């Protein structure tokens, strides 16, 4: 019965233009209630951080820190947003990050230097995405199951490669990228990569045929198929894209931690899904927002940062994190339904 309790669609809905507009106007138009409420939540967090720890929180170094910590999961979330927008799910992102990071940091790979590590990290990510994509698009497997299987095997393979050991990176070029000397105009290289991935992701989702097809497949796969879209190939590309993002994220993590470990990327899948959903991407597909996802990631990272700065322990952190997720979603729903 619940489906009838919701306000009816159709002619009684508010008419919202969604067509192309000049860039600045479209940015304003797209900054819908949902995005604004997310910005509000983020702003509220900044106020809380600024009041509780004015010196430590409102500090350039802290901004650099928060953005750096957001970069790895942020890149993963951009890929995840595409997959969810298409009506799918990728539970294997954390495991792929782990596998890419350890495969790229073995002694043998490190012999190939900087390029070898980068190449391997990206290629392993893409390879895992390819397997996911083929299983889902052409093998007819449900995304939940196919990526769950990938989660298990990729973690297993990562463990097999490392034998549970931490693989230290000895390549100066990589290590340097994580240090202050490499900051470009005060921006850490990791954050630059995150920004570039975000911008490309936004453009691809909103301005290309690929993005449009992704939304169409997620909104109504049957309609997309009958409209002549190659739904299967699109699905394949999407999981490939998610794998690519995982590979990039793995490389960022290698820079950040100076090592590869099979426990890397722990529970990334849940963090990425949560950030995308809080951001306003529909779990059922058909609507996705990169801006929202990135805001979701930033909200999570800022919460963690404020808690750590205030020396709150993990029990309190976890309780509050859950409460803030619920609050953020409720605020969005309220503001979205009253306008």
């Amino acid at each position, binding site marked *: 019965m619940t489906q009838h309790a919701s306000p009816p669609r159709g002619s009684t809905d508010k008419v919202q233009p969604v067509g192309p507009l000049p860039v600045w106007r479209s940015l304003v138009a797209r900054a819908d209630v949902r995005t604004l409420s997310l910005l509000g939540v983020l702003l509220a967090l900044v106020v809380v951080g600024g009041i509780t*720890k004015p*010196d*430590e929180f409102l*500090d350039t*170094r*802290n901004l650099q*820190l928060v953005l*750096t*910590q957001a970069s790895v999961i942020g890149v993963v979330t951009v890929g995840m947003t595409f997959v969810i927008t298409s009506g799918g799910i990728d539970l294997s992102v954390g495991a792929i990050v782990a596998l890419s990071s350890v*495969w*790229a940091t*073995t*002694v*043998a*790979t490190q012999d*190939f230097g900087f390029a*070898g590590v980068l190449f*391997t990290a990206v*290629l*392993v990510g893409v*390879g895992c995405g390819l397997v996911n994509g083929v299983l889902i698009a052409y093998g007819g497997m449900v995304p939940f199951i196919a990526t769950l299987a990938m989660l298990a095997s990729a973690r297993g393979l990562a*463990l097999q*490669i*490392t*034998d*549970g*050991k*931490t*693989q*230290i990176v000895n390549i100066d070029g990589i290590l340097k990228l*994580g*240090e*202050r000397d490499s900051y470009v105009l005060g921006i850490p290289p990791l954050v630059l990569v995150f920004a570039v991935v975000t911008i490309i992701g936004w453009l691809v989702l909103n301005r290309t045929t690929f993005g449009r097809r992704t939304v169409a497949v997620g909104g109504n796969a049957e309609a997309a198929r009958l409209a002549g879209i190659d739904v299967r190939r699109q699905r394949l590309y999407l999981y490939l894209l998610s794998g690519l993002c995982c590979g990039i994220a793995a490389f960022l*993590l290698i820079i*950040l*931690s*100076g*090592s590869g*470990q*099979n*426990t*890397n*990327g*722990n529970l990334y899948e849940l963090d990425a899904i949560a950030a995308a959903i809080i951001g306003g991407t529909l779990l059922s597909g058909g609507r996705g927002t990169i801006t929202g996802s990135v805001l979701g990631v930033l909200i999570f990272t800022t919460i*963690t*940062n404020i808690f*750590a*700065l*205030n*020396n709150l*322990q*993990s*029990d309190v952190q976890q309780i509050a994190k859950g409460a803030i997720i619920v609050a953020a979603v409720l605020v969005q729903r309220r503001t979205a339904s009253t306008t």
Partner: protein
Amino acid sequence: MSQLTSRRGLLFGTAAVSAGALLTACTSNESKDEKPAANDQPAADDKPGKQVTVGFAGPQADHGWLNAINENAKSRAKKYSDVTLEITEGSNDTAAQIGQIETLINKKVDVLVILPADGKALTQVGLKAMRAGIPVINLDRIFNTPQAYRCWIGGDNYGMGFNAGHYIGEKLKDTADARVVELAGIDNLELTKQRTQGFDDALKNYPNIKKVARQAADFTVESGQAKMSQLLQAQSKIDAVWNHDDDQGVGALRAIEQAGRDEFLMVGGAGALSAFQAIKQDNGVLKATVLYPPTMAASAIDLARALGQSKGVGGLAEYEIPTSITLYSAVVDKDNIDQYMSTGFR
């Protein structure tokens, strides 16, 4: 069009195959100076006795220390011509581990060495083995009841924290208003609570030292880096850090390097090789680490052999091996590093 596609396909295929070949080559971790992480202490010097089959069941070795446990057990068993080791693949799943141990019971091994994924949950299967007449050496994570094991051997988490606190206290005893931070391990493990308790108790002896912050990481490099960088941002000046685990310490050291901080000393925990090497080089903040020695697995093999051959422990007057052995959490710093270097695990 189709020709173009097929050529593209061919190119892509070739690229994929060669990339695959390259990648496969890249899984190798063999390096020239590889040496098994194990102990150099002499094995029991008595004559080979009756053949003993030792069953060994541990959790999944997804972490440096646990991996070192396995390797210690294996290499120790290899030193005895009269010991056969039946080792199960590790599992973190209680039910799976119970199944593995029951298999070992059915195989009628002479002695069982069990490092339970969860001590409380595996008590029953320990009891079962004991009732079936197979003596159990309980390694580290303790069963609910002493009836479930013949001998327990394990580390001292409280002592680890206490010794770390004592070491830092001695180093800072002349520093006025010293500020100390703690980077703990997984917070929902009892051992983390014990390590923190010991650390706090030791610091009580030094009224000039204050623990100004504590954050829990989760034994991974990634979390160590993340939590340590937040701690450093929160505390603009500190005098010492105690980090519960050398694996997450890799990340913590990385965060310290990235923040460009060096005004303090750091004490680690567990005894990883990378930590030992850093201590020996003495060019960073890491000055010491408190052992939680994986050699306990080698000792467990010694005990199992002794049990199987009905002998006591050499060097003690007793006819029987003790019921309980708590290892000492030694502090390793520059002065005694060479003695411990060979026990460092990767």
